[in-house]
């Protein structure tokens, strides 16, 4: 008996220590969990605080400067008379032309890769290079655009040369977005279409593309809102600093908002810095609106798919 109890007693003891150990580890894990959670929150907030600080700072400097005259006036050497009409009109032109050029090219390439391309070394090489293109610095596109579109194709310093260059710049993003969107289309849709006797092209045109359109548009709009902030490639192409007119056609010379901002920030007079802040607010609004449209489209698209 004694022996039995002797052998029995230690067992619960070890179980007890086991339990405390386990609760100790659990507490530690919980602590690590919490720490990581708060680190994550902090990381998120650092980004947001910097953005908020930037926006508030710019808003304080520039919001009072924005009025109808500012939006509808030509640039001037007198800061208080100067406006951004040619700049935002140029940005709008560039945006529209870039979208018209890049969307069909990007979507067609994306469809090819997802629907038609077979596993071959050639296609693999193409895919890798498109991924590489996304990482090329934008100024390189500018140099390429100047030679190919500006000089070789004879577009000169026109909106068209700028739009083609920016279209190249965002093409990889649109291709990737298109491929992801097509991948997300449920295979049942395709199978149903084939089952009804539709051809491949009919399936793509009537089923796959409409179902993927939300994702494609979201990607396109996000890439366009990147294009609207680009300056470096356009400077190389020959976007100008002083343009006293609104472009009336794609072959006209032009300036864009980032160019006008850049020009104003390097002026010695403080009043031009206020103008630059005001122009930055306008540019930010354009990007925010575009991102808003992208989010709206994505939400609608997700609902439709379900």
């Amino acid at each position, binding site marked *: 008996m004694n022996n039995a109890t002797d052998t029995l007693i230690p067992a619960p003891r070890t179980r007890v220590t086991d339990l405390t150990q386990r609760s100790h580890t659990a507490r530690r894990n919980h602590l690590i969990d919490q720490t990581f959670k708060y680190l994550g929150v902090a990381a998120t907030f650092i980004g947001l605080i910097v953005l908020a600080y930037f926006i508030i700072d710019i808003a304080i400097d520039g919001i009072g400067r924005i009025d109808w005259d500012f939006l509808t006036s*030509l*640039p*001037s*050497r007198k800061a208080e008379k100067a406006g951004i009409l040619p700049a935002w009109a140029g940005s709008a032109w560039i945006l529209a032309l870039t979208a018209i050029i890049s969307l069909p090219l990007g979507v067609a390439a994306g469809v090819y890769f997802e629907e038609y391309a077979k596993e071959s070394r050639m296609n693999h090489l193409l895919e890798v290079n498109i991924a590489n293109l996304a990482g090329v610095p934008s100024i390189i596109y500018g140099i390429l655009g100047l030679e190919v579109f500006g000089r070789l194709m004879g577009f*000169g*310093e026109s909106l068209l040369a700028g739009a083609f260059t920016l279209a190249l710049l965002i093409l990889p993003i649109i291709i990737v977005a298109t491929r992801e969107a097509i991948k997300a289309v449920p295979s049942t849709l395709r199978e149903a279409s084939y089952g009804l006797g539709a051809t491949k092209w009919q399936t793509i045109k009537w089923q796959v593309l409409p179902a993927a359109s939300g994702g494609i548009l979201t990607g396109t709009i996000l890439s366009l809102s990147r294009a609207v902030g680009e300056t470096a490639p356009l*400077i190389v192409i*020959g*976007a*100008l*600093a*002083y*343009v*006293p*007119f609104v472009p009336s056609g794609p072959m006209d*010379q032009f300036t864009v908002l980032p160019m006008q901002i850049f*020009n104003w*920030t*390097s*002026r*010695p*007079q*403080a009043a031009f*810095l206020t103008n630059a802040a005001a122009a930055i607010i306008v540019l930010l609004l354009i990007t925010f609106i575009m991102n808003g449209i992208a989010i709206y489209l994505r939400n609608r698209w997700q609902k439709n798919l379900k």
Partner: protein
Amino acid sequence: MEAKQILLGASLMLLAACGGQTSKNNDAALTGNVKIDGSSTVYPITEAIAEEYRVVAPNVKVTVGVSGTGGGFKKFSRGETDINDASRPIKTSEAEACRGNNIEYVSLMIAYDGLAVVVNPQNDWVDYFTVEELKKIWEPSAEGKIMKWSDIRPKWPNERINLYGPDAASGTYDYFTEAVVGESGKSRGDFTNSSDDNVLVQGIATDKYSLGFFGLAYYEENMSKLKVIGVDNGKGVVIPSFESVSNSSYTPLSRPVFIYVSKAAAQRPEVKGFVNFYIDKAGSISKDVGYVSLPAELYTKAKEEFGTFTR
């Protein structure tokens, strides 16, 4: 009542137009484009002239780019632009490129630009710099050697000197190094550089032991935050100002700026009209945007030169 005011305004404008030196009634009928590119230093003058020219010739589209003097000359020598803004005279290589493409041109001096050497307002020890001292501070061999104020003159504080200047891509840097070091584009590398002169202004304004240089206009706009230092070129200390730059006593840190006009372009009435207007207005406008006007006789000379060039 309103009709009267309009009538009054119209007749006043008519009077003003008649009183002008240029034949403005001719300019008003002009159409076409004038393409200008080049130096960002000359840009504010050209922009202001283009703005004023719109009033006289509303149907002429004048566009101005800022590719820099060198970048602008590249386009100019290909015949892509009509006028090039230049903060230095054309280089031999650029002149050859023009000749190779049969581009004849005339160079017109339009204003002076001064470079200001500035320190922090709390700096109470520097009274002036000699050109030799500036060279001693900025030459390539000064890197690692002239690191403290006391390295320049022993009685100055034994504190680290922090240097600020425009980046190597700017014509201002080229000009300063040529005038001070003796060779364009050569200087020490350990200084805070920026293509944005406002960044330099901020840096110097907040740093007691700083020293920097940039265009006179940036000093004129920020006088309360900076202290300008006179330069002794062997003929006494001269402080940069509109007077000392325009009478050439502030040497070697003042320079003329130019426009280059292509001959083929100058045959077009809108370019000819614009350049004549430019020469007429350059004096008053350059003052307006922070530059120093040339003596009146130089503008008369430029106008004659351009007249013979287009004849």
